[in-house]
């Protein structure tokens, strides 16, 4: 609390300094401290209240720090609530965070006051800073006040479609919070979960699956469509999310795939039969009939989780291990062994859990861990629970081959100072002895030796284990029984004594001389024995009475008499029962005939079994497995379905934008090599887009040309596209159906190929896809493409690209370097708000120019995406590069320096207003609707006189398209032409209407909220149309 002391002393308050001192001293005992502080508490809280209400930020912060200190210690600070909640809107971010901590802790108790803070959060939810949005949502959803459930619901819904994946992640967390607060919201929340499950961000995936598990784990149908995506994203998800997703997918897979655990023999038989009787099989519809084929999705899951075995996070490794255990074919499970053994190097707690799981696994699959047996050797420094788990595993792993090593190791353990562990070892030896018959004798002899051990627990445990062992093969071991009888006097542990007595009774015929003597001794000491020993004494007496009544009749009666007056119910009951059973009298003659058979029936040998035998009924790695009872919220792992459910549910329909990609690469084109050679997208893309704008023929023609010629070809096709536009438009409208066929066909053909070459780009740049989507919907297809129907602002390809290029740098001023620029009117690849500019650089000098790049720029805030440095430009060579400039919707020139290795040249690019637009497609109806919103100030219009030849439709759209990059809106009337676009930077809608009137006049109306641009555009249009 050094911070506290420092700043606190600065205030100079002596009283408070003392208090801080008191607070920091560690309190020795809880009760005393509580009492001592109680009186101080009252005063101090007053003081804190004062500080919180002061104007000084630093005082408030100091107070909050102390309040948090109180909360941390579990002291009650709820009475400060009104004072604290006032600071929720503080500008100081640390203070704000501490207030959040306080609110989350106490809001539940002070619901009414907590409501005061809600509006602050609602405001913060709209903050431009994503961290603030996220933390507002976190707190809002954490304060557990039922009244605000609707507000929370709204906030969650909104956050679920936030731009920032971090906020979306927070909303996934909030779902669980809201669900625990109000279960009635389940249906609505499932909708949000469904939406978030579709999210492609790795950040969100783990959290939403967590929410899914908590809210609706049974809605497995929500997973189908996202299954493959989750599998593929898994490696990139943060480690905690991986754990949750893997365990969910384990459950999913067990419901959706068939078992891969067919035994080979069965498998062959069935496949044979399937061959001969295939027809019959079908009718019987027997699931096993088909040879097992793993579902590719099942394989996908196994394949994608495997690398995670190398994770540094032990929980991830364990969850992959359990996934393989529950899902993988038997011969593949062993790949997890190494990684699990590696985890044993980790912290003690980790070892404990991992060993438990290995214990469960090793019972079923010895072979998996046998090669690593030495990793389970016990060290004297291990904690007791670790030791016994290791012992458990060693016992399970023991077999004929390694038993001698194991037993030697056990010998060391038996001598351990940790007696509990030594006793465990003896039990383990017993288990080995029963499991491996070769060593039973060795083990027995070893255990008999232990009977002379000094330690009682060791001896007792040995006796018990020997008893169990003898039961399994009693015939040969009468000398061991004799030996034990000899030791009987020295053994004091009740359980051991009882065991020996039981043995005597059970095998009294093998030791006819010793057994009565033991009984004699017991009769003497009967009263001072423990209950369990007394019971066995009664048993022994009864058995001896039946087999050797001559010698033991009196002794038995004596013992039965003692038992009759024992303090313990059990013993009295037993005595009464035995007496009736064995001592013949008139009444019970029927039963006593069978006494021999009742008491001396052959008894089945006890099974020495592992405590982990049936543990695997719980999913490995779960809490339930660890505690061996069903934990609350445990989700049962279902059995494999006999018949696999429909596999096609996991197929994801190809989403629209992807389909449209296919247009871009006609079947004859081979863009793949270009992609692989690392061609920059900027050189490639214009061609792609042009391909698109042109009709089918020119596409083929175009694509047959090599990529290097793209510049040329682009200009060619541009021409052809503009010339043939109206024709093709008409044509296509008439022949809708054939066209569709035409486009769909290559799609199908290119499917696999495209997805192959496209995969990397999806991941590498979302931006790219975005720009492609924008560029791929030209107006000509508007009637066909479902995309273009979705209003608003579907950007289309340019209607016309003017050839006009402008000088950027003259060769004289550029010392041989000349540069020209033009606006290709394509949406910019780098940022949607930028306008793309195409620059051709030519070297007219006689020496190569090196390192041509862009230098300083002005205004400095100008957002330019520079082209990659041109390393070398040979004489007479020219190169075309693309750059993006955000003109910010103004015609102000962009000034920057074009640099070579030696020189800098100041250049400027001046856009015409029309180049700052991007065409959009909309229907006439939408156009009118939009226009209705942009009246008054936003409208500018002018009437012009125009030449007669301009009165037909084609020439009107032509000059308009030349001036401005706008899209044609299909119009129902011949004399009204409409054009629509949006500004590149701010995306404001620009609508142009040209209404032809009588006597060659025309009314031009422009509606846009950017009124300056509107009037500039109007001026340009007036000029162009009047001139034409």
């Amino acid at each position: 609390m050094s911070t506290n002391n420092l700043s606190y002393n600065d205030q100079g308050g002596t009283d408070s300094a003392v208090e801080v001192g008191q607070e920091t001293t560690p309190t020795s005992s809880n009760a005393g401290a509580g009492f001592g502080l109680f009186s101080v508490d009252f005063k101090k809280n007053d003081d804190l209240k004062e500080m919180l209400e002061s104007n000084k930020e630093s005082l408030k912060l100091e107070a909050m720090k102390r309040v948090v200190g109180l909360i941390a210690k579990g002291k009650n600070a709820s009475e400060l609530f009104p004072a604290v909640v006032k600071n929720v809107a503080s500008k100081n971010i640390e203070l704000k965070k501490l207030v959040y901590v306080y609110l989350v802790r106490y809001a539940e108790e002070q619901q009414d006051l907590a409501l005061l803070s809600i509006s602050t959060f609602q405001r913060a939810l709209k903050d431009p800073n994503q961290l603030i949005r996220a933390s507002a949502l976190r707190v809002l959803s954490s304060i557990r006040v039922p009244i605000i459930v609707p507000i929370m619901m709204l906030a969650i819904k909104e956050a679920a479609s936030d731009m920032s994946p971090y906020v979306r992640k927070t909303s996934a967390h909030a779902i669980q919070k809201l669900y625990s607060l109000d279960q009635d919201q389940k249906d609505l929340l499932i909708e949000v979960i469904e939406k978030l499950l579709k999210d492609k961000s790795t950040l969100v995936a783990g959290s939403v699956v967590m929410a899914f598990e908590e809210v609706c784990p049974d809605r497995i149908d929500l997973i189908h469509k996202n299954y493959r995506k989750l599998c593929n994203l898994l490696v990139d998800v943060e480690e905690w999310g991986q754990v949750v997703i893997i365990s969910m997918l384990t459950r999913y897979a067990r419901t959706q795939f068939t078992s891969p655990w067919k035994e080979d023999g069965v498998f062959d038989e069935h496949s044979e039969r399937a061959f001969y009787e295939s027809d019959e099989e079908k009718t019987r519809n027997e699931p096993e009939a088909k040879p097992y084929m793993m579902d590719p999705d099942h394989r996908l899951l196994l394949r994608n989780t495997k690398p995670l075995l190398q994770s540094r996070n032990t929980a991830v490794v364990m969850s992959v291990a359990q996934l393989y255990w529950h899902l993988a074919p038997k011969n593949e499970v062993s790949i997890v062994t190494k990684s699990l053994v590696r985890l044993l190097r980790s912290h003690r707690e980790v070892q404990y859990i991992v060993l438990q799981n290995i214990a469960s696994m090793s019972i079923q699959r010895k072979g998996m861990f046998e090669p690593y047996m030495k990793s389970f050797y016990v060290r004297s420094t291990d904690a007791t629970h670790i030791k016994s788990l290791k012992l458990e595993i060693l016992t399970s792993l023991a077999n004929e081959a390694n038993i001698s090593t194991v037993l030697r190791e056990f010998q060391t353990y038996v001598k351990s100072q940790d007696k509990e562990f030594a006793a465990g070892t003896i039990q383990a030896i017993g288990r080995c002895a029963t499991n491996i018959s070769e060593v039973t004798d060795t083990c027995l002899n070893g255990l008999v030796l232990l009977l002379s051990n000094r330690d009682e627990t060791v001896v007792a445990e040995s006796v018990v284990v020997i008893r169990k062992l003898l039961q399994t093969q009693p015939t040969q071991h009468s000398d061991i029984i004799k030996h034990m009888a000899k030791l009987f006097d020295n053994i004091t542990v009740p359980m051991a004594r009882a065991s020996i007595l039981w043995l005597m009774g059970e095998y009294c015929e093998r030791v006819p001389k010793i057994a009565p003597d033991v009984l004699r001794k017991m009769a003497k000491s009967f009263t001072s024995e423990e209950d369990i020993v007394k019971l066995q004494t009664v048993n022994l007496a009864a058995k001896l009475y039946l087999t050797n009544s001559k010698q033991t009749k009196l002794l038995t009666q004596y013992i039965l008499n003692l038992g009759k007056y024992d303090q313990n119910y059990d013993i009295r009951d037993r005595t009464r029962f035995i007496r009736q059973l064995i001592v013949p009298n008139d009444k019970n003659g029927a039963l006593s005939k069978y006494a021999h058979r009742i008491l001396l029936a052959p008894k089945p040998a006890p099974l020495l079994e592992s405590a982990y035998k049936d543990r695997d009924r719980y999913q490995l790695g779960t809490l339930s497995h660890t505690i061996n009872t069903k934990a609350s919220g445990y989700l049962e792992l279902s059995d494999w379905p006999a018949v696999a459910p429909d596999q096609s549910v996991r197929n994801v329909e190809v989403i629209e934008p992807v389909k449209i990609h296919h247009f871009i690469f006609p079947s004859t084109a081979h863009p793949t090599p270009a992609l692989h050679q690392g061609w920059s997208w900027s050189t490639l893309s214009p061609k792609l887009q042009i391909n698109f704008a042109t009709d089918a023929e020119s596409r083929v023609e175009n694509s047959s040309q090599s990529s290097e010629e793209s510049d040329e070809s682009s200009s060619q096709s541009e021409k052809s596209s503009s010339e043939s536009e109206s024709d093709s438009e008409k044509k296509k409208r008439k022949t809708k159906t054939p066209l569709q066929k035409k486009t769909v066909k290559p799609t199908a053909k290119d499917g696999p190929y495209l997805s192959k070459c496209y995969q990397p780009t999806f991941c590498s740049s979302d931006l790219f896809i975005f720009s492609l989507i924008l560029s791929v919907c030209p107006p000509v297809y508007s009637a066909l493409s479902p995309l273009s129907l979705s209003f608003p602002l579907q950007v289309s390809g340019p209607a016309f690209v003017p050839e006009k290029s402008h000088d950027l740098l003259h060769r004289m001023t550029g010392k041989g370097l000349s540069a020209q620029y033009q606006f290709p009117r394509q949406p910019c690849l780098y940022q949607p708000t930028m306008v793309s500019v195409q620059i051709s650089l030519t070297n007219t000098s006689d020496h190569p120019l090196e390192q041509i790049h862009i230098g300083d720029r002005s205004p400095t805030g100008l957002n330019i995406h520079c082209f990659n440095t041109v390393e070398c430009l040979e004489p007479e060579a020219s190169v075309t590069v693309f750059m993006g400039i955000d003109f910010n919707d103004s015609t102000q020139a962009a000034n920057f320096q074009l640099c070579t290795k030696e020189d800098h040249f100041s250049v400027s690019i001046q856009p015409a207003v029309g180049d700052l637009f991007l065409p959009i497609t909309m229907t006439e109806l939408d156009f009118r609707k939009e226009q209705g919103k942009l009246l008054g100030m936003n409208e500018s219009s002018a009437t012009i006189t125009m030449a007669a030849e301009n009165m037909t439709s084609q020439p009107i759209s032509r000059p308009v398209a030349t001036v401005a990059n706008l899209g044609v809106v299909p119009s129902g009337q011949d004399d009204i032409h409409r054009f629509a676009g949006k500004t590149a930077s701010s995306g404001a809608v620009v609508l142009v209407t040209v209404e032809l009137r009588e006597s060659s006049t025309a009314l031009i109306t422009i509606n846009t909220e950017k009124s300056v641009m509107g009037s500039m555009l109007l001026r340009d249009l007036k000029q162009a149309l009047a001139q034409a």
Partner: protein
Amino acid sequence: MIHSLFLVNSSGDIFLEKHWKSVVSRSVCDYFFEAQERASEPENVPPVIPTPHHYLISVLRHRIYFVAVIQSEVPPLFVIEFLHRVVDTFQDYFGVCTEAAIKDNVVVVYELLEEMLDNGFPLATESNILKELIKPPTILRTVVNTITGSTNVGEQLPTGQLSVVPWRRTGVKYTNNEAYFDVVEEIDAIIDKSGSTITAEIQGVIDACVKLTGMPDLTLSFMNPRLLDDVSFHPCVRFKRWEAERILSFIPPDGNFRLLSYHVSSQNLHPLRSASLVAIPVYVKHNITFREGSSQGRFELTLGPKQTMGKGVEAVLVSSQLPRGVLNTNLNPTQGTYTFDPVTKLLSWDVGKINPQKLPSLKGSMSLQAGASKPDENPTINIQFKIQQSALSGLKVNRLDMYGEKYKPFKGIKYMTKAGKFQVRT
């Protein structure tokens, strides 16, 4: 998932509590205290304790129990791993993770815990991200903050949180660009009475301290990558590249981190063969005897270097838990100092460096409780040592290359061998 967290010190006081969902009364810890009482040693408290309504999952580090309260099914390792991550973070922030340090920095601790979990689910555990959100307290910063009124809390979402390399922040700048890698191998062994090796394995880690400007992309290759049998990586390592080429390729986090931990393959495939493939660097000659009926025992111990590849064995520390019957010892070390705690019966001998010419030894007698019988078992001897400048397995780094940045970094690689759990049974 994680409902609440209680920190309990060795004397059984709860000195910090934090709740992520509704408040759980601290009386739930009574179940934990019960288990603690039952356990003979602090380490023996079971990590998972079921109670009627909750489950307690705890870890013990630095003599502090971190007890997490769970209400429903969750993979226990998930919680355990997270708790250890919390401890690592505290250590990273405060240098040590002690009760005093936590109490002194209770506000930072609270802010950290708040960021690390949201509704019981981990939110940010990457140290680089946390440090951008909450700056670690330093004396200088504390002074500056009190004067200027600025805070330790970041206002922007850390860049790492959204990027594909969440472990690295952007805009890292250093005047001296350096990258150091420590290859540290630990040998775990059990040596039996006669001096033969029962089991021995080598576990290694590569710890890195990378202070490089910008976004460097490093590759590290080994002369003999086949030695690495089983590896686990920091998330920054590109797994595919390793699979294909056995090269570590990664964009490193800023600062200290563990790049890799590995297991050296030796005897795994031949379980029944002796573990002779692993070189054991030291040997121990011992003679510890207790005679029946006498109240004296003899204790003799001599250490010597064995297969050390010509390097000196340093920082040798011998410790042994003597049987309960031993009252006191009277021993003479030829070098170093020894202590014996009559209460815990722990003998420890700080040997220092082993001089091959004059082997260190510890000889003398032990006095036993009069009348008590001779202990059954001889004590196990635990040995710690270090060997500088060599990795026991022979692993060698071939080269380290940097791509993506123009400057020339300073690179350094250090090798070291340590004893892990090295036990000699006597």
